[in-house]
Each structure stands twice: as C-alpha cells, then as structure tokens.
C-alpha cells in the first residue's frame, strides 16, 4: 500500500495529512491543482469527484477534489479566486463531467479546456450560477 508521505514528497511539502470525517486531507496551503493531479496519476489513484462550495459574503468558491487510493479517500481543498481555476481534464479524463457540472451550476470557469454542450440547462447559456438564478 502506497504511503501518503510518498504523495507529500512528490508535491514537495512536509505538511501533515489529517484524517477527518471520512477523508485524509493534505493541509498544505500552496498546492496547485495540476500538480496534485499529476501526483495522483503517479500513484494510480482513482479520481472520485469535485465538490463546489459557494462561500458567504461574495468570497467566491472553494473546490474540494477527491481521489481514492486503495480504499482511502484523499481530499484537497482549493480556493477559487476570480471564478476560475486550472482544468485538469487533460491530465484526468474522469474529471470531464464534474468540471462541466461545476461550471454550469456555479459559473466557475476551468481554464484550458473547452466545454461540450450543456449537462444542466438554464436557457441556452452555459456557465450560470443556478443558485443565484433560484433566489
């Protein structure tokens, strides 16, 4: 079984992993999502999902990425500044639909990729924050 420290080494961080309510979180602050995706590919972790959180007081969004490594759920949290974050679609094919869903449901833009036709629909416009529409 691959140790979590191996991943830390690949990411160049000495910050600890914290097990919290079902997932192991790497609490490092200066991680880049594409570096994390490369590290996950290197240890053959399986991509699970992205969970988007809209922060209060117009503070933007937070995205939590999850991968499975031998039954352990690994979590990485990224703040989204200015409504955009790098796409990892070219590194991880399984991320395609959830990036599209987050884009269409929260208007978060994943840089460096093109979007196929809509999964979710608000008229014919892609990239609408459906939570704002529903208010």
């Amino acid at each position, binding site marked *: 079984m691959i140790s979590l420290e191996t991943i830390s080494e690949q990411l160049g961080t000495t910050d600890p992993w914290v097990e919290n309510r079902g997932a192991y979180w790497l609490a490092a602050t200066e991680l880049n999502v594409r570096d994390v995706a490369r590290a996950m590919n290197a240890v053959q972790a399986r991509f699970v999902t992205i*969970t988007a959180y809209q922060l209060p007081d117009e503070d933007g969004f937070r995205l939590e990425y999850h991968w499975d490594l031998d039954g352990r759920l690994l979590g990485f949290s990224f703040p989204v500044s200015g409504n955009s974050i790098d796409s990892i679609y070219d590194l991880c094919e399984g991320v395609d639909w959830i990036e599209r869903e987050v884009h269409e449901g929260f208007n978060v833009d994943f840089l460096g990729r093109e979007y196929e036709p809509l999964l979710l629909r608000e008229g014919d416009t892609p990239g609408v924050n459906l939570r704002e529409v529903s208010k």
Partner: protein
Amino acid sequence: MSYKIPMGPYHPALEEPYKLDLICEGETVCDAKLHIGFNFRGIEHLAESRNYIQVIALMERVCGICSNIHTLTLCQAMEKLTGQTPPPRALYIRVVMAELERLHSHVLWAGIAAKLMGFKTMFMTCFELREKVMDVLQAISGNRVNYSMNKIGGVNRDIDDPQAVLKMVEALEAEMVRTVIPIFTTSSTARSRCAGIGVLTHEKALSCSVVGPTARASGVAQDLRRAAPYAAYAEMEFDTPVQQDGDVRARLMVRALEIMESCRILRQALAKMPPGELDTGDVKLVFATGTATSRVEAPRGEVMYSVSWKENSRTPRRVHVRTPTFANMPAIRWMVLGARLADTPLIQASIDPCYSCTDR
C-alpha cells in the same frame, strides 16, 4: 459519408430520458455524444433547505432503484458530524437491506438486458425472481421503492422474520444456478449479442475512473465493501467477481456472480445478526461545523456524499452526491466506438445506467 442518428431522449431502449447522438458510417458507430440533464431536479440545492430529518426523505428520492443506498450514505456522513455510532444490530440490518437492494437491482438489470437481447422468456424469469426480492423488501419495510429504513444513528425497523429472507435467498440462488447463469453463459443468443461487444479496455476503465461492475468487468478489482468496509461488511466473507474482457458479457457475468455473493453475504448477516437496539436512542442531535464524507458500494458502484454543516443550524450548508452512473456514463462513448448500430441499445444498457441518479 457519415450521418448522425439521435437515440433518445425518449426511446424504447432507454429506461429514462437521455440522449445519445451516434455518428455512423454505414452500420458502424464512429463517435458518440451524450446529453444528460433531462431529469435534473435540483435536489442538492433543495437539500439546503431541509432539516436533518427531511433531508433523509429527500435524498431517498434521488434514485428509484437504490433509494436505500442513498439514505445509508447520507446517514453515515451525518453520523460523522453528530458523533453517533449505530448499534451492531442496526449495522447488520443495513447490510441486509443493502444486499437485498443489490439483488433486486442486478436481477432487474438482467431482465432488461435479456429484453434488449430479444430474449423475452429470460426477461419474464428475471422479473419473476425480482418480484420475490421485492416481496421481502416490502415485508421488512412496508414499502417497495422508498424503504425509509435508515436514520441517523441506526435503522427505523427491525427484521422480524429472518427465516422469510433466508427462504427467498435460497429460492433465488437455486433459480440463478439452475436457469439464469447457465442460459446467460451458454446460450448462443446471449453469447452472440454480448461477447466482444461494447468493449471498455482496462486502460480506458482506469482513465475514465469508472466504478462498480463496469470497472470490475474491465479487470479493475475495486469494491468499497472490501477496500473501505462500512456497516458490518468487515465481518462478512465474500469474493469480488472480476472479469478481464471488458465487454457486455463480462459486465453481465460480474453482476450474475455478484448475485451469488450477495446471497452469501445475506446468509451470513442473517445468521450472525446480534440482538440489541436498533438505534442510539439520542433524540436531540448536535451537528459539528465542518464537512463529512461517506462512500458506499451501491449496485452500480461507488456512491459518495459530501455533507457540510454549520453548528446550530437545522439545515445542511451543502449536500453533494457523486453517483456511480455519473462516473460510468462518459465511458459509453468509448464502448460504442466501432460497434454496430444495432448493438448500441444493449451496450449503453450494459452499464446499468440510472439517469435520475446522474442528474439529481
């Protein structure tokens, strides 16, 4: 010259609405595009306005087949936020319900696959078997679709008559061994419609991050019941069927063998079920601030819930659901490449898709 054939969103081969645009040259499929969203109900957003009792009833309605799995996963996540540990008997009842649901889901799928193969007799046989499982689920819970079995810290109902469940398990197992598995594995009709059709290679299964029987049929031996045991699965002995071919037949075989393993798990759970309480008995629950995740091996593969709560709030801040079909459906594009047009209904059905789950 290539041409586009739209399949769906309403089509006899689809159990629920979605759309598959097939780009064909002659009878051969060269590319495909999938369109979902026809069942989008905004359930995740709706959950943010429901309290911790209402949200269980709401999430039970994400899926009409694996409704119990959704409440189980949600309750497990909420138990992490409230510090509840269900008593042992409740954990065993959760295993029994989860395996009964797997049985009825897999047998239902086998029937639909038989229908799409043009094997109507087998369709009737499978649905007769499924009906027996449904009867047991109804006897336990009083319901046939939304069982309302799970609550935070335990289960709502006991299993009063384990012998009835055992009797059904024996009948189902005997019929599977006598009829269903031999016909699916040896009949020339089944073989010609399934073998070598709709192949998802091992490499593609890994890169698409597919889950459940779809992954196991492509040689990816992942099963959360083993890798990250929940409820009472750590105390059960069972095998994880894996096939290497990645075709429709492999997916069919994995599910058929999983039916046998579910029967094995059910026998153990019913025999070893400890006496005791059904829940923790705590009436007033206090939620901690933060996020909890929970994963369960549903009939179609891994379900994951992320539940975020703020202390003293009656409603969740966020409930995110990642369903197995959401992970598996994009792989259909690769399965139908190079396939005959006439095989595409069966190929898309071979992942046992659930579009209600996918769209939420």
